[in-house]
């Protein structure tokens, strides 16, 4: 729908979404691994150490994921 198109067009971050999405995948894998091993949620610092991504990159990558989720949300609305 127009909503999704506007969304993709308006957001400059879509341009960098490939790396961000790859990072997003790496972050989620790592978070799952930590929470499986520790029996609790992984923190930003722990994820940063294991992925060698900066806190800043993790914040941005998680934003890219939010966007993917929002796109799905608008699709199913």
């Amino acid at each position, binding site marked *: 729908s127009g909503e999704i198109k506007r969304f993709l067009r308006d*957001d400059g971050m879509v341009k960098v979404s490939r790396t961000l999405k790859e990072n997003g995948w790496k972050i989620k894998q790592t978070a799952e691994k930590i929470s499986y091993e520790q029996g609790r*949620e992984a*923190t*930003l610092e722990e*994820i940063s150490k294991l992925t060698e991504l900066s*806190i800043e990159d*993790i*914040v941005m990558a*998680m934003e890219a994921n*939010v966007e993917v989720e929002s796109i799905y949300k608008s699709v199913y609305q």
Partner: protein
Amino acid sequence: MRNEMTMEFDAISENEAFARISVAAFISFLNPTLEEMSDVKTAVSEAVTNAVIHGYDGIEGGKVVINCLIEKDVLHIEVIDKGKGIENIERAMEPLFTTKPELNRSGMGFPFMEAFMDDLEVISEPDKGTIVQMKKKIGCTSWIEDEE
């Protein structure tokens, strides 16, 4: 530890992502989990969207203010608009209640804020505006322990 920020921006939907990312970046040094970060982002998104869509519905030039205060491991957020205000706050906070069904609003903004944050308070006056106050404890305090 105390850290404070405040931001004010044009009430346009393009700024919703900006607000959400800024708050996420602001709290990141508290060492949150991904889930805590995403909870806070969802709550901020809903509150800012409400300010833009409902508060300034049809009003040009509105501004949204976000105040963030971190005190120890508790995050306090206020999202403020000077728009139309809410007549019946209790009813507005009920799940599925919306005054904009035509925009596909789900009426789940306030229930989400309530679910994802530890505390939610809404102060509003018709034609004066709305203040949404939220609190959340960020669980992992390793950063604070590291402080000398």
